[in-house]
Each structure stands twice: as C-alpha cells, then as structure tokens.
C-alpha cells in the first residue's frame, strides 16, 4: 500500500449543506470544504485523528454523492497531510482523480451516483516489524531443518525422484521449494480441506488428521457437520440442493447427459448454448454474448484473440492470474498501473499515446485496459466511472472482468456497471464467470459488435469442448430467478439480502477494531492478519468453532499482508453471521488481531453516516 493517506468525510450534516449549496458549485464547494475544516477543528474526535495523523494510518476515500443536475461536486474533502513531499504527491494522485475529471470536461456530475468508500488502513509499524521477524524465524528454522534433512537427522517426507532418473537435470531447484517445504507445509492443513456436501451457507467437512506434521493426511472417516461456510463464493446462495430449484437442471441432465464431446465450431453448439447466450445478453443489456466452459479460460483464451503484437495492455497490478496469463499469451506489450489508481492509469495512457511503441515509436494499434469489478483479495471495487471517462478521452478499450461482481453488486445484481449506474455500452468487453454468484461453472464475454468476432476467433470456440448443458441450465435458472422471469421476486430479495449481510458484517468488523480492506459494498471481506504464525492459528481455531474460513498469505498477497478472507452470502442468516462475528471477536482478542485504530467508539460519525447512506 502506498504511504499516502487521505481522509475524506461526508457527514450527514454536510450532506444537507451540500444540497443547499448545489446551485452555486464553486462557492458551494469552497463553503463546504471550509465548514468541514471548521467542524473538524471543533470536533474532539477529529482532534484525536489529528494527533495520529503524523503517522500514516488510514486511507478512506469517500467520493460523495453528486447531484445529477449539478455541474460540479458539492463535496467536501478534508485532508490530513503530512509535511512531506512524498505524501503530498500521494495526495495529489488521489486528488487528481476528481481534478482530472473536471479537466476532462466530463464533470456532468454523474460520475459517482453513490458514496464510494474504500478502506485500506495501514497497520502500526510494530506489526510490520513483527511480521518480518516471523518470516525471519521461519526461514532460519527452515534452513536448520533442511540442514538436518541433508544429514539424515530428520526424516525426509518429500517425494523423491526415481532411481533411474537421478542423473537427469533436477526437475525442481531446491531453493524454489524452500518456502513450500518449510513454511507452507507447517500450516498446509488450512487449505484444500475436502468437503462432502453442497457448498451452501453451511457445509460438512471431512475430518482429516496428520501424523507427520502435514506431509500426509489421513481421513478419520468422520465428518464435521454444519460448519459455517465463509469461504465459498456463493454470493447469492444459488449453490443449493433444493429439489424444486434444481428441477429444470435435473430434467436437462437427464436429457443431455454430462458431456458434449465436441467444440463450438465443430459439433458442440447445442440449442442450450444458444438459449443461454441469448439470456446472458438480455440480462446484461447488451447485443450479444458468448459463454465458455471455464471462467479462467474465458480470460486466458480470449484476450489473445482481441489483442496482439503492437497493441498495449494496461493492467491493474492486482488482476487475477487468468487475466495476466491471457495478456501474456496475446503477445501484446503489458504495462501495469497501481491498483485502482486513476492517476497512474492516466499517466500510462498519456505516455503510451504520446510516445508510441518503444524503439520503433510507431503508434500503438490499440490500447486495452484490463480491470476487475471486485478484486478478490482486496475487496475493492473498480473506479469504473473514472476509468470509463479516461478510456473515452484517450480512445482506449475497456475489458472488465466481473468474476466476483456479477450478481453480487448492483441493485438487481447486474454487476459494477449497474452499481455505478452506467450503461453496459460504456464497457467494450464485459466478462464474468458463472462460478460465483450463479453457483455453476464457466464464463461469458459480452459486448457490442464483439461477439461475432469471438465466435470466429476465440481459441475456446475452436479448440475447447463446449459447456455442459446441465451446468448451462443451472445458470439459466439462476439468471431467470435474478431477472424475475420465474415469476417471483426471490432473485431480487437475494441481491438485497446479500447487500444487507455485507454491510452488517463489514460494519461489525469495523466496530470490533479489525483492519478490513475494501469497499463497504463488496461481499469479499479481507481481514488482515499480517503475521505468518497467525494464519494457521486463526484458521484452525475458527474451525474448532465450526467456522470454515479462507486464509491467504504470501505469494497470493504481499509478504506483510497475510489475511483471512470472508465471502458473505445471501444465504447466510443473521444468526450465522452473528456466530461468526462473536467467534471473531473472541479470537480477535485472543490472537490480538484488532489492529485498527479507528473503531466505532473513536469515530462514530463516519460509520453512522455511511451506514445511513448505504442502507437506503
């Protein structure tokens, strides 16, 4: 995370004021800003913030509600800055977003229609020190044990090369697996836990034990029943076994069987595929869509069809592996911009257009921006309105991966495009997966004047087996439910329930004093653990309390930012969430995980206000 911070406040009081002063933008802006400053000075709470501001602590960015008719923003920003060039530039960067917009002449006031709040609080210094210390200790012991294994003092559990091939070039370099062998192995039991039921709000885990410190596992034959599932991406609760809900899936499975045994271009386009593609296009409000059998491959096998040599890909630094792989396979030049940082993106865009391709200085053939809707490890939501205005200004194309956001955000579950109240036509390539919200498998690409090309040029259409028809039916039924085509409002209720659950869960965690990342509306909730030792302790103790959580560490996250990740589902009941929250509260004290210095008690206004705004 950047060593920059910006604290922007939108108070309920100021909001009223904003409404009043919206007629005169400039004055309104100044006035509110000024007032906010005054209010900040008056407020004892804020004074406490100021005491802390010397240290880089918190970055909360609130992009305020803008009135649709107003020409400019009547928002207020209150910056706590450090007298430091680096930080100043950091703030400029953040601030440049709004400034840039104004300059671009797109400030029609509709950029953000709702509050956009994201938290990336930085932990105290001692946490970072202890984290490195933890890795240091782990590494030292790793070397010690490697040494002992080499001298035969410790049993070698690792699988070894065949005798016949001992003189081949080693398949793995010893150092490559150091981390796996010595650190990951110690806490390996927290991943790949096998389950033996539907991955709904609760699941059953197969109990497994290890006799050799996680080198091998042995199943006891018992199951751990009704573990609360905080790990699966079952946002809308469509991973279910209800007979009525699955009726059509059962019928189609009986009719079609499981496989297709051919590719889309040869003999693998079934009527089911035609049906689902029409429905997906209708759901997204675009001209046409195409579906693929695997979400990962949707990215990795289609990006190469869209861009190639002489093209430029601008990719968010935290993009998913599938996007990275697709970009790499395409042969285009790849440049990375800072996560969700519009200034960084704009700089890259400007430089790219002005200076052209490196060495040859020819103009780029095309520039495509790759972003995700919700980032799965950060819980942040893409700044879509700003990206769209940048892409329009610089004539770039936008590829939006809605793997986690489709179904999960937006008033009717149509993803970040709807969340920001934008038109699907603003995005050139809409991509998403069916694995998460729809409880199925596969992915789609959709857009205007795009799909015909994909049908003829997609690697997946020519070489990969098409989607299983029963899986397609699951998507169709979930999507129909979301669209209300099944004659109920159940789909809408699920979306709303997810929103309520998300905000409740996030708010409570904030109050307890955990550091959690991401947008207040994102159902992906990363809770920062930092220290490597706490990864294992946290996940194991949560399992003892019958709660299944996902923990992630290096290399999936930066080395100092190990975290637990919760995925809130519409299927979670309030009781389940409370059970989890109570367990977290207890465990947070026990493991000393409550690193945040902004709990509810220290700053009530912010949370009161946000919950008020988001609930309506």
């Amino acid at each position, binding site marked *: 995370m950047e060593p920059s911070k910006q604290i922007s406040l939108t108070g309920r009081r100021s909001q009223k004021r904003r409404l009043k002063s919206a007629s005169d933008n400039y004055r309104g802006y100044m006035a509110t800003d000024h007032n906010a400053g005054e209010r900040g000075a008056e407020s004892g709470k804020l004074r406490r913030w100021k005491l802390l501001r010397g240290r880089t602590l918190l970055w909360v960015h609130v992009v305020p509600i803008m009135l649709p008719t107003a020409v400019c923003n009547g928002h207020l920003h209150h910056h706590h800055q450090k007298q430091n060039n680096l930080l100043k530039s950091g703030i400029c960067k953040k601030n440049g977003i709004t400034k840039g917009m104004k300059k671009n002449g797109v400030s029609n006031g509709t950029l953000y229609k709702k509050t956009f709040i994201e938290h990336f609080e930085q932990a105290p210094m001692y946490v970072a020190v202890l984290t490195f210390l933890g890795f240091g200790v782990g590494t030292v012991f790793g070397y010690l044990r490697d040494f002992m294994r080499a001298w035969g003092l410790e049993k070698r559990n690792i*699988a070894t090369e065949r005798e016949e091939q001992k003189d081949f070039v080693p398949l793995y370099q010893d150092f490559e697996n150091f981390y796996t062998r010595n650190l990951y192995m110690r806490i390996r039991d927290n991943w790949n836990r096998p389950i033996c039921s539907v991955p709904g709000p609760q699941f059953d885990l197969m109990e497994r034990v290890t006799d050799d410190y996680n080198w091998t596992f042995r199943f006891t034959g018992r199951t751990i029943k009704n573990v609360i*599932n905080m*790990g699966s991406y079952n946002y809308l609760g469509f991973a279910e076994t209800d007979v009525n809900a699955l009726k059509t899936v059962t019928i189609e499975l009986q009719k079609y069987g499981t496989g297709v045994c051919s590719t889309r271009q040869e003999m693998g386009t079934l009527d089911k595929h035609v049906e689902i593609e029409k429905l997906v296009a209708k759901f997204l409000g675009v001209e046409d869509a195409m579906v693929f059998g695997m979400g990962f491959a949707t990215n990795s096998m289609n990006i190469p069809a869209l861009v190639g040599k002489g093209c430029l890909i601008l990719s968010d630094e935290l993009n998913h592996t599938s996007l990275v792989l697709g970009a790499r396979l395409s042969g285009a030049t790849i440049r990375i911009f800072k996560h969700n940082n519009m200034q960084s993106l704009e700089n890259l865009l400007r430089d790219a257009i002005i200076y052209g391709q490196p060495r040859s200085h020819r103009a780029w053939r095309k520039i495509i921006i790759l972003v995700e809707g919700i980032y799965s490890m950060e819980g942040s939501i893409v700044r879509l309105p700003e990206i769209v205005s940048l892409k329009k200004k610089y004539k770039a194309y936008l590829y939006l991966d809605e793997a986690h956001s489709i179904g999960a955000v937006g008033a009717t579950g149509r993803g970040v495009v709807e969340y920001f109240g934008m038109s699907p036509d603003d995005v050139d390539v809409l991509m998403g997966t069916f694995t998460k919200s729809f409880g199925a498998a596969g992915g789609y690409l959709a857009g205007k004047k795009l799909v015909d090309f994909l049908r003829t040029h997609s690697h997946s259409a020519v070489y990969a087996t098409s989607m299983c028809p029963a899986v397609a039916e699951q998507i169709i039924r979930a999507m129909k439910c979301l669209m209300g085509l099944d004659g109920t409002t159940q789909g809408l209720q699920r979306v709303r329930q997810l929103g309520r659950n998300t905000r409740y869960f996030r708010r409570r965690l904030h109050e307890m004093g955990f550091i959690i990342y991401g947008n207040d509306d994102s159902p992906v909730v990363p809770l920062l653990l930092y220290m490597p030792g706490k990864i294992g302790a946290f996940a194991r103790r949560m399992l003892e309390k019958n709660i299944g959580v996902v923990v992630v560490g290096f290399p999936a996250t930066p080395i100092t930012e190990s975290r637990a990740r919760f995925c809130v589902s519409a299927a979670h009941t309030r009781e389940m969430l409370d059970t989890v929250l109570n367990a977290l509260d207890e465990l947070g004290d026990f493991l000393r995980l409550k690193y945040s210095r902004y709990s509810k008690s220290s700053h009530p206004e912010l949370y009161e206000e946000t919950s008020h705004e988001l609930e309506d």
Partner: protein
Amino acid sequence: MAATGMGQQWVLVEMVQAFYEAPAYHLILEGILILWIIRLLFSKTYKLQERSDLTPKEKEELIEEWQPEPLVSPVPKDHPALNYNVVSGPPTHIISVNGKECINFASFNFLGLLDNEKVKSAAQASLKKYGVGTCGPRGFYGTFDVHLELEERLAKFMRTEEAIIYSYGFATIASAIPAYSKRGDIVFVDEAACFAIQKGLQASRSNIKLFKHNDMADLERLLKEQETEDQKNPRKARVTRRFIVVEGLYMNTGDVCPLPELIKLKYKYKVRIFLEESLSFGVLGEHGRGITEHFGINIDDIDLISANMENSLASIGGFCCGRSFIIDHQRLSGQGYCFSASLPPLLAAAAIEALNIMEDNPDIFQTLRAKCERIHKALQGISGLKVVGESFSPALHLQLEKSCGSREDDVKLLRRVVDYCMNSGIALTQACYLEKEEKCLPPPSIRVVITVEQTEQELDKAASLLKEAAQSVLN
C-alpha cells in the same frame, strides 16, 4: 618523439623557460584560452533537449490525433464459422443437426457414454447431494470428496501413483507444461502438436524446438545439437531442464507417436517425456489405458501423462497422472488448477461412473478398434480424398488428394462434401483451426469420428456416402 632526438629536447627546454619568463597576465590569458578550448570540445553546439521536449500543447495534439484500430474487425455475416451447426437435443449417436436427424460421426463420444443411463444416474445422484457448482477453487473449500475419489480412481486405472484433475480439458496440458518448464528450459515438441500444447509452451516461455512430425531422426538431430551446446556451457546445462512433448494419438493427424523410440531417446539424452493422451486415453490398449498399454511400455517411463475427460469419458475436464514426485507439484504450480473453480461434482461423478463402465467392459476397446479398422478400410480408394491416420484411430482425417490452390477453396470444397453427407443423414465436420494462430497449420480435412455405437451398416453407409459425395463434388 624520440626519433627527432636533440632538436626536440631543445624545444621542450625552451618552452619551460618561456613559461617561467612569461608575465602573469599572459599565463592567465592562456589558461583561460585552454579552458575555453576544453569547454568547446565537450559542450554541445546545440541543445538536444529543447528540440525533443514536447510542449503540453503538442502532447494534447498527439493525443487528439491518435486513432486506434477497432477493437475487433467486423466479421462478414456469411463467415463459415458464424453459420455453425446447431444441435438440438443431446449430441449422441443419433443427432439432430440444424433440425435434421443424422448419425453422429462428429462428436468424440468414442465409447458412447454420453447418454449412458448409469452415468446419468450417477450424475443425478451427485446433483442431488452437491448441487451444480463448487463455488471455489480447490484450495478454498472447492475440494469435494468426489474429486478425491476421481483422482484416486484415475491413478488406479492408469496404474500411476497420483492423478490430478482440472476443470477444463484444454487447460490441463496448457497448465501442466508451464508448471515445470520455465524460461530458459528447452522443450522438444512435435510440430503436429495440438493447440493446447502450443499454448502451454507459449505460457512457459521456454526455448522451443520443433521436430518434424514423428521423425525420430530429426528429434535426435536436435538432441545431439543440444548436447554439443551443453558441452560448451556445462554449468548452464546442469540447470536447463529438457522435455519432449508428444501426443499419444495426434489430434491433427490421427497417427500415433513412436513411443518406444522416444523412450530410448529419453534415457540416452536424459530428457523427460510429457505425453498428451486426450484421444488415446480410453481408446488404445487392452484396457483403454492409452498409448503406453498399446506399446506395452512401463508407464513410469513417462514423466507425465495428460488427457481430457471430454472424449472417451464423455464428461468435462482433464487430468494429469504420473509419479507423486511430479504430479504433486501442480497442486501449487498448475495455474489452471490453483486459480480456477474446481470441477462441478456432477461431472466428476459422471467420470467416475464412466471409469467403472470402462473397467467392467474391457471388450469395448476391442469393439471400437474393430470398427475403426472397418471404416478405415472402407474409406480407402476414394478418388480425390485420402485417408490420414492409423487404422485403429477413432478420429481420422480425409484430406484432398490434390489441393485446388488456395486453402479457402479447399475448405469450401470439403464443406460441400460434408453438406452432401449431412443431407443424407451422416453428420460430419471439418477439423477447425485458427489458421493464423497455429504453428504448423494442418491441411484442411474432414474428421471422421468412430464410436462404438455405430453399427457396421452405419459405418458402411458412411463410407459409401463419402465415396458418393466425393464423386459428385470433386469430379
């Protein structure tokens, strides 16, 4: 200088003397002049910087000027790939293509398991218990007991230590190769290798050496070349991994790789072998274990076998199998394994049931082989078309004996043959390729797929129909 001798020395002495005698202002002036000359020598006569820096206005103009290419080029509506066949209902033995009922000679449903009742009921039971999706990758609660069972069953079936499943056939070998082979490593690959292998190699960023299709002499030449290269730089050679990547039964040509010779080369040059068996798994060998069983080779001699479950097993997904030492590595390094949602349990359950059927009816492979041989024989001697592929290959290619000059025309011609057959109730397709993406584009062909469900009459009918079609279209 020494050559001039005394005279030179005298001048030097004089110079030093003059230096001592000269007045101070003179020396200062000369000093300044020298400095001036140095400055002139080292300074630039013009300022490059000023010339190249763009003014903000110019920058804006450049940005204004730039016109990108359209994201995608428009595709004419009559593009053959846009007018694909639409199958209504299941793509089983009898298939309804574009509303017309045909006998299916196009889907890779070799063992006819696609509409097998047992497989379906296994999938139904799984659907009832687990629902459809897994809602997570294997690491994050996406591992189901069914997956573990399928992996165990596949390993047992193939008689290897371990197996690992992927949720997409294409992603299997495409993820497996880059898990082992990295930048700087060397991969020897058959030029007829399928697209999934090509993509895997591209993702690995390794040094790729193509050898002629099934030409062991060419492969050995490359290996020898590498050997001499290695002797030049033994330190680098010690850490450069080498692989041979081949297919058991080639998707693009329908013939088998000479595995026994490859094994000899493997031990001679210390190269590992990765084998892609999507077509041969569940087809070749007495028990359908693939090319290793076909040649009677110890499966441990192959470092990694990869196959998809989308052909013989009539499910979705793929798997890799081999020794634990090798396979286990993919659980953290196989990108398509780690970062993708796991296989829907109902598809895994279907695959398990399909394996059961394969184990219970080993004659099925004999039946398939007999049928392949029958049609292979029947297709010989069609004027204008030649049969490419082994007699026992369940997917063989019919290529034009003589190209009419351009690939486009050939494709059109073959399309007419296919349409002719389709009108008479035999569903066939051309083998589709992305012409610009393939490393070595195979010539256009009609792919004939043989399954156990086709009766002898149907096989003969297809063969005679193809003969008829060729007669009417090509002559």
